[in-house]
C-alpha cells in the first residue's frame, strides 16, 4: 500500500532510463540486466562494493562501452547505438573516476575547452587564440562557482588532487548538461572540498538530473534522493537512503562493515 501511495505521488519525469542493460567481457558478466530510471531534478546514487559494476554502468550509459544487451533512452531518444561524443552533445555528460583534466592547460583553458564547442568556437583554425577571450566571463563565473578563483591561471597538473576534481566538475558544468553522471566526485577530497562539492551538486540538481557513484555514505544520505545498490553487476536494492539502509541484504553485502 505504501508503495502504491508513493507511485501516485507525483515524481519528476524520467530523463535517462536503461532497460535490461547487460555487458559481458567474455564469460564474465560485469553488468547483468540492470534497469535504471534517472529523474529530472533528482540526485540518484549508485553504490555497491568494489567490482560491483558501477563504473561499467557509467561507461554503458555514456556509450564509452557498447552494451551486450538492453536499451538506453535519453530524453525520449533511443541512444543504444549512438556514439559517445554525440551522447555528450545531446546533454548527457560524465566525469571520470580518475581525475580527467587536461594536465598542461591552465584552469581557465580547461574550462574554455569545454565552453568552446557550445560556443561554436572549436573548428576555427584561422582565428587567433585571443578569440577565445570572449568565453572568459562565462568561464570565470564557473571557476568562481567551484571556488577555484585563486588558481585561475595555474596549470592543472600543479593542482592538488581534490582541486583537480573540482576543476573537472566545473568543466562538466560548462556544458550545461541535462543529465550529469559523476563517478566518485568526492574521492580523495578534503572535508572542505566535500562540503563545497555537495552544495554544488545539490544546486545543479535543481534544474537537472544527477547520477553519481559515491562511497562516502554520509554524502549519499545527505544529498541523494534515490539510491540503487549494485552487487556483482545486478541490482540488489533500490529506494531512498533510509529504505535501502534498512535492507538486510544490503547491510550484509555492503553496509555492515562500512556504514558511517
Amino acid at each position, binding site marked *: 500500500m505504501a508503495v502504491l501511495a508513493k507511485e501516485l505521488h507525483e515524481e519528476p519525469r524520467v530523463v535517462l532510463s536503461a532497460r535490461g542493460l547487460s555487458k559481458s567481457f567474455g564469460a564474465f558478466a560485469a553488468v547483468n540486466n540492470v534497469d535504471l530510471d534517472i529523474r529530472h531534478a533528482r540526485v540518484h546514487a549508485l553504490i555497491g562494493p568494489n567490482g560491483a559494476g558501477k563504473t561499467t554502468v557509467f561507461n554503458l550509459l*555514456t556509450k*564509452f562501452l557498447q552494451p551486450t544487451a538492453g536499451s538506453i533512452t535519453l530524453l525520449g531518444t533511443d541512444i543504444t547505438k549512438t*556514439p*559517445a*561524443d*554525440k551522447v*555528450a*552533445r545531446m546533454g548527457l*555528460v*560524465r*566525469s*571520470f573516476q580518475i581525475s*580527467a*583534466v*587536461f*594536465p*598542461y*592547460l*591552465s584552469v581557465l*583553458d580547461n574550462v*574554455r*575547452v*569545454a565552453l*568552446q*564547442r557550445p560556443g561554436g*568556437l*572549436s*573548428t*576555427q*583554425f*584561422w*582565428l*587567433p*587564440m585571443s*578569440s*577565445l577571450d570572449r568565453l572568459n566571463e562565462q568561464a570565470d563565473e564557473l571557476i568562481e562557482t567551484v571556488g577555484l578563483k*585563486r*588558481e*585561475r*591561471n*595555474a*596549470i592543472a597538473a*600543479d*593542482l*592538488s588532487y*581534490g*582541486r583537480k576534481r573540482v576543476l573537472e566538475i566545473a*568543466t562538466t558544468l560548462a*556544458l550545461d548538461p541535462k543529465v550529469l553522471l559523476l563517478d566518485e566526485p568526492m574521492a580523495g577530497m*578534503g572535508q*572542505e*572540498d566535500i562540503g563545497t562539492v555537495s552544495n554544488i551538486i545539490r544546486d545543479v540538481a535543481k534544474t537537472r538530473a544527477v547520477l553519481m557513484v559515491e562511497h562516502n555514505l554520509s554524502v549519499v544520505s545527505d544529498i541523494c534522493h534515490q539510491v540503487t545498490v549494485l552487487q556483482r553487476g545486478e541490482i540488489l536494492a533500490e529506494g531512498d537512503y533510509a529504505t535501502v539502509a534498512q535492507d538486510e541484504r544490503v547491510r550484509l553485502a555492503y553496509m555492515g562493515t562500512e556504514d558511517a
Partner: protein
Amino acid sequence: MSDVIHNSSATSTASGRTERSATASKTYAAFLVIGLLLLLIAPAFLYPIFLMKLLCFALFACAFNLLLGYTGLLSFGHATFFGGAAYFTAHVVKEWGFPPEIGILVGAAGAAFLGLIMGFFAIRRQGIYFAMITLALSQMFFFFCLQASFTHGEDGIQSVPRGHLFGFIDLANTTNMYYFVLGVFLIGMIVIWRFINSPFGMILKSIRENEQRAISLGYSVARYKLGAFVMSAALAGLAGGTKALVFQFATLTDVGWQMSGEVILMTLLGGIGTLIGPIFGAGLVVTLQNYLATSQFPVTIITGVVFMICVLLFRRGIIGEFYASRLGRKLGFEHRR
C-alpha cells in the same frame, strides 16, 4: 592545511609563468628577427640550391610535426604527401603549362586529398597500428607511382620548367627562385603557427592530453584528428611541390618509405612539439647529407649514429633541450611534454 599550501604554490607558479611568458615573447621576437635576417642574406654566403633544399625539408618536417607534436599521431607515410605533391606539381607545370605558383597549390591540394583518404583509414587506430596503416597505404602509393604512366616510373618527371612567377618574375634565376622558396616557407610556417594557436589547435592539444575527456565533452575526436592530418598533408605537399620546382624533377625517392623515416628523424632531432625544432633537425640532416654525399663514407651510417646519440643524450631534441636548459629557461622558454 596541505591543500592551502598547495594552493599558494600553484598560484605562485602561475604568476611566475606569466612573467616568463612575457620574457618569452620578447625572446621569440628577437630570435624571429635574427632568423629572418639570416635567411634573407644567406644566399650571399651559402650555395642557394642547398639552402632551398633545406627550406623545403624544414617545411616538410614542420608539417609533419604538426601531426606528431601537436596532435600526438606518428605517421609513417608522409612521403606520400611530399613526393605525391612533387609529382602533381611537376606534371601540371611541365605537361599542362601551369604557372609555378598554381602548380605548387595543385600539389598541396593533391596532397590534401591523399591525406583525406589516408587519414580516413588511419585515424581510428592508435599508436603502432596508426603508424602501420599509414606505412601500408604509402607503400601502395609508391607502387602506384612506379606503375602509373604520368610519373614515368623509374625515370621520374625530368626537366620541369620553373616558369615565371605571376607571369613576370623569371624563376630560372637562382636568386629569384631562392626568395620565392623562402616566401613559400614563411607562408607555410605562418599557417602552422596560426593553426596550432587557434581555437582548433586548442582542441587538438586537449585531445593529445586527454582523449577520453575530450570525447566526454562532446568532441568527435576522429574529425579533429582528420582535420589535423589533412592540414599536415597539405603543408607537406606545399614543401614537396616547391622541391620539385627547385630541382626541376620529381622521382620515386620522394615517395619511398625512407623519406617517411627521414622526416621522423628530422623532427625527433630538432624537438617534437616545438615550432622551430624541426627546422634545425632538417638543417642538420640535409647538411650531413650534402657534405657527406661526395665522400666515400656512407651517409646513412653517420645519420644513424647522430640519431642514436640524440635519442640517448638529447631526448627532447636540439631545440627541446635548449628550451629546457638553464639558459633557455632564463630566456623565458618553456618546454612541456
